[in-house]
Each structure stands twice: as structure tokens, then as C-alpha cells.
């Protein structure tokens, strides 16, 4: 199918745990942090797909695997129906023109020694797409697009002369200067002041229309996810536990974890007293993942079979899948 721009199949990323010499002698088996553990999803062209979850659930690692900043332990990534999992060298470089990433911290992702014009124009040089006057024109054009106006003034500024919101705009400009088809946005607004968040989100939505972009949006903030996304996947301990259209997921959350997560989000209304679903304990370590369903030690609805049997992600209604034994035998 052509209209799937990204397809991830059974992606896994295990990071080996560094052990001391003594531990190496005493234990044979190497241990791993299972950051991403068998994740499959696909993103349609033009859509905003969100990976959401708490810190440590593997959402950022998944994003980095997709743009090939990390090498998957196993699994496949398809981009426009082409298997890009094993791309190397020149092929990978050319691929990067089409897929870009924006990072969370705009203070760390822009070089403090590079003027904005140089930073935004740099990708054009690396890919030998434009130089001189032509490059300058393209940089001005893209700065204008992200709302850094007048662009002639901004090209000669250093990052420290910009506010957080302006820096994130600059990072966006740098990512779209190559005219990519697909952008991974990793928590692009979580470090930005509340009053400016909406402007950045709206800018991203405008650019999607104008440049026909597809986004993989990564966030821990479900209220933001609800505002921006078309489809959402909720991750827990390296796995997608629920995935569906925004409407079905928010109106009818199926997984007990999703239900608890949604109930914990503060609602900006003093008269609304929400009831929180209590979860016992905290997220276990990704090194010793619980047996069976990995959520069972904290699940208020856990049954005996949950300890032994690992549920798969199955579609229970149109465009809504859940990985929970409660819905399995229906």
C-alpha cells in the first residue's frame, strides 16, 4: 500500500547493561534494558501519529529507531514501502533528506557557535543542494515560514539571543529546509512556556498542510496529544498497549493502564472533581520485565492468567487495538 509512509514491524531495541568484572564472572547471561520490545505500527501519509507514555516507556527510543539514529536489535522499518532497516552510508544520507527529527531541548539542539542562518543552511550544504545566493534565499524563505520575521534580522543571530520558543522555531526551520516528507517531533513543546506552546503546535499543524508533512509526535502530555493527533499509541515498558484513533482512544479507553493514565490528567476546571483510578506501585525496571502481561503487578483488574500469558495487540473495534487479556476471548 502506497499510502503508508512508515511501517514498523516487530521492532526491538535492547541495550546491554554494563556489568562489573565480578558480576561478569558470577553470571553467565548478559542482561539487557528492553527499551523497545516488539513494537509494530504504521503511519499513513499526511497523518499525525503520536507515541505517548510515561518516562522510560520507550517512546523516544522508538522515534530514534524510525529515523535510523539507532540501530534496531531486530525488526524492520519500511519507509514508502522500502525496507530501510539495513541502509548504510550514501543510501542512509539520502534517506535523511526525506526524514528529519526535532528534539525536545532547543537549548541543546542548536550549536551555540553557529549563527541561525548557518545552522539552518547547514543541511543544504551537507546534502549539496544549494549554496551561495540560492542557499541564502532558501534559508530566508524557511525562516519566514516558521514565523521568525523579519528573516533578514534572524539569520545573523546566535541561539543565546533567542527565546525558547524562537529556538524551537529555528529547529523546525532546520528540519524542513530539506523539504522532508516525514518528521519525528520528540516532545517539541515540553520545554516551552505554556503561553507559547500553542503557537508552536499551531505552526506544526500549518506546516503539515503547506508542505504535506507526516509527523510522528512523541509526548508524555496526553492533553497535548489529544489536541494534535489523528491516531495515538500508548506505550508501557517498551510495548504498545493500546492504539487507535484519537476519538476512540479518548472516549473509550480499553486498557486499564490507559484508563488510569487518563484519569490522572489534571482537568482545568475547579468545579470538576475527577475520580482517579489508583495504580499500585511504580513502573518496574525494563531489565526485569514482569512475566505475562507486563502491567499485571499494577493492574487493578489483573487475573491469574495475566501472570503467565502475554497478551498481543489485537484489534477489538475498527482502528482500535488493545493488548489486554480482558478483551482477548471476545
Amino acid at each position, binding site marked *: 500500500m502506497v499510502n503508508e509512509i512508515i511501517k514498523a514491524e516487530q521492532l526491538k531495541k535492547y541495550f546491554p547493561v554494563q556489568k562489573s568484572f565480578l558480576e561478569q564472572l558470577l553470571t553467565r547471561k548478559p542482561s539487557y534494558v528492553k527499551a523497545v520490545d516488539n513494537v509494530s505500527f504504521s503511519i499513513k501519509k499526511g497523518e499525525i501519529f503520536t507515541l505517548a507514555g*510515561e*518516562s522510560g516507556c520507550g517512546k523516544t527510543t522508538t522515534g530514534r529507531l524510525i529515523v535510523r539514529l539507532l540501530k534496531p536489535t531486530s525488526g524492520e522499518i519500511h519507509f514508502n514501502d522500502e525496507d530501510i532497516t539495513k541502509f548504510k552510508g550514501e543510501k542512509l544520507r539520502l534517506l535523511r533528506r526525506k526524514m528529519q527529527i526535532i528534539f525536545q531541548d532547543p537549548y541543546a539542539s542548536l550549536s551555540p557557535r553557529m549563527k541561525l542562518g548557518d545552522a539552518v543552511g547547514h543541511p543544504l550544504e551537507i546534502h549539496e543542494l544549494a549554496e551561495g545566493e540560492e542557499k541564502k534565499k532558501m534559508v530566508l524563505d524557511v525562516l519566514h515560514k516558521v514565523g521568525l520575521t523579519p528573516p533578514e534580522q534572524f539569520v545573523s543571530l546566535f541561539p543565546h539571543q533567542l*527565546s525558547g*520558543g*524562537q529556538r524551537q522555531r529555528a529547529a523546525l526551520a532546520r528540519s524542513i529546509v530539506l523539504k522532508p516528507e516525514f518528521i519525528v517531533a520528540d516532545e517539541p513543546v515540553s520545554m516551552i*512556556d*505554556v*503561553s*507559547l*506552546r*500553542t*503557537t508552536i*503546535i*499551531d505552526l506544526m499543524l500549518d506546516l503539515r498542510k503547506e508542505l504535506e508533512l507526516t509527523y510522528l509526535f512523541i509526548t*508524555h502530555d*496526553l*492533553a*497535548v496529544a*489529544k*489536541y494534535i493527533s489523528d491516531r495515538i499509541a500508548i506505550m508501557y515498558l517498551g510495548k504498545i498497549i493500546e492504539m487507535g484513533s484519537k476519538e476512540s482512544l*479518548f472516549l473509550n479507553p480499553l486498557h486499564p493502564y490507559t484508563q*488510569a*493514565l*487518563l*484519569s*490522572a*490528567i*489534571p*482537568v*482545568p*476546571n*475547579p*468545579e*470538576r472533581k475527577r475520580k*482517579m483510578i489508583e*495504580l499500585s506501585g*511504580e513502573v518496574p525496571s525494563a531489565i526485569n520485565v514482569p512475566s505475562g502481561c507486563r502491567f499485571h503487578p499494577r493492574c487493578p483488574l489483573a487475573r491469574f492468567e495475566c501472570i503467565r500469558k502475554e497478551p498481543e495487540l489485537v484489534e477489538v473495534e475498527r482502528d482500535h487495538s488493545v493488548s489486554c487479556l480482558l478483551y482477548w476471548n471476545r
Partner: protein
Amino acid sequence: MPLLEISSLAVDYRTSRGTVHAVEDVSFSLEKGETLGLAGESGSGKSTLGLSIMRLVPYPGIIAKGRIKIDEKDVLELSDENMRSIRGRKVAYVFQDPMISLNPVKRISAHFTQLIITHEPKTKKEEAYGRARDILKKLGILPERINDYPHQFSGGMRQRIMIGLAIALNPDLVIADEPTTALDVIVQAKILDLLESLRKIYGMALVLISHDVSILLERCDKIIVMYAGHMVEYANSTELYKNPKHPYTQGLLKSIPNIELVDQKLSAIPGSPPNMLHPLKGCHFLPRCAYANEKCSVKEPPLVDMGNNHFVRCFLDEEGANGE
């Protein structure tokens, strides 16, 4: 008699590049058992305001003007010695980052016993230890873990320990500065529930400082909205939610997503936060305000009493014409 009374407080940071008026002309009072929210963006002066109550404004900050009274006692006139007896016992502070606020080489038990014995020298070590165990139980942490080190706890548990240290001496007022900003939503909700239940048990007042207006609307009786060091609006939370007067508050409320609403339209506040080193002459919000007129650029608007304990710093309301 209010527990805390602040009148025309001003805090300056005198830097080599000029003076920053971090807090200017702030007045409010807080009764026993009340919860007050301080809302604002980074740099709005909300943390400085919180720290000034404890007289802990860091160098080069100084309290330039105003009065801070706790239980009728003027905090600014106390000697350092007497001030120490207020910190911890009357007023306690919960900092944002529990990792840098706990001593990494000391056991949790040492944190508690040192605190208790310093402030109550007559207490025996065993007694302090026992009290610490009781507090851990209330926080939902196994008392057996009292001899663990800070790094052995998760972020949420460390923040609970910080809260435990704050309430250890049974203060009348707890100031919590972004206590949940570094935490995930589920842990955040648990910490806020814990603060609320402890507040009820001990009958203490709470000042909650946060950039997240959703939390404040949900958890506080009254809210102060700060912008560029000024209190721009002050009202009880229901009133603020239903009837925001200041254009900044209105913009803020329109820019926060609510997961309970279907097809919510968010609108942003244009422009960016002000440079505090070069303040404007008139209203600080002027460049971002949709309703600004000539008057706003000439002088700073005064705090206008709207009745019903609702105050707003804007000319629009002084004239009775609200910009809605």
C-alpha cells in the same frame, strides 16, 4: 488574623547588567488551612515570591520593599537566629528537584533526625527516629526503607520524602515550588493527593507554585496569576475560571488543552515573555495584548478591586469595560 500577610512586596536582583525587578508590588493574605496557587511562566517571579517568604532569595536578590508578616510577626525584621526558628517550624519549603535537595551521602533517617534535633534540641535521637518512621508510613513508603540512601528511591518517592521533611516539624504553612514538574502524570496525581490529605490532617496552609494552571485550578482555593513580576490577577479559582478579567489570564485559559472537551479550539497568546532587564514603561503585557490603548503605554495600571475578592491589574476593568 491571617497566617501570612504580604503587603507591597518588591524583590530586586541587582546584577552587573542592571537591576531586575523580579517581584513588584505584590500584596495578598492567606488564612490558616487555605490553599493558594501561584501561576506564571518562567521568569514571572513566582519562585522568587515563594522564596522571599522564607527570606531565602538567592544572591544578588534583595527584598527592596514591603512587609511580610507571619502570625503578625514581621519576618523582615527578625534576626537570623529568630528567622531559623521560623524556617521549618512555621514555614517549610518543598523544592522542585528532589535529587539536588537531598544529600546523596546521607541516609534518609539522617535527614529526618538532623532536622528534628536541630530545631528541637531536647529530642532524643531514638524519638526523632521513631517520628521519622511514622512520617514515612504516612507518605506511603515502607518504614523499613528509612536507612536507604536517596539514590535508592524513585523520583516520585524522593519527592514524597521532601514533602515528609517539610511537614516533619508540623509547620503552619508549606510552600511547594513546582513539586511535580519533573514527574509523570500518575505520580503527579499521587503527590498532589498526598499533599492535600496531609494538609487536611495537619490543618496547614499551602502555597502551590506551578506553571501548570490546570493543577492550580483543580487543587487551590485561590489563585494569583503572575506576569513579569506583577500580580496581574487574584481571585478564588472558580471565579478565575469562569470570569477571568485580565487579557493574559484569558489568553492563558484559552491556551491550555482540556482532555474532557471534544474538538477544543486552542488559541495562543501572541509575542513572547518580556525581557526583565529592560522593562516597559506602562503595562508589561502591552506588546502581547489585543485590547491595549494609548493609556496602557503611559503608566502602569493599578490593581483594581472588582469586588468579591477579585483583583485585576488592568485599565480595561477600571473603566468597567472588560475586553471580552
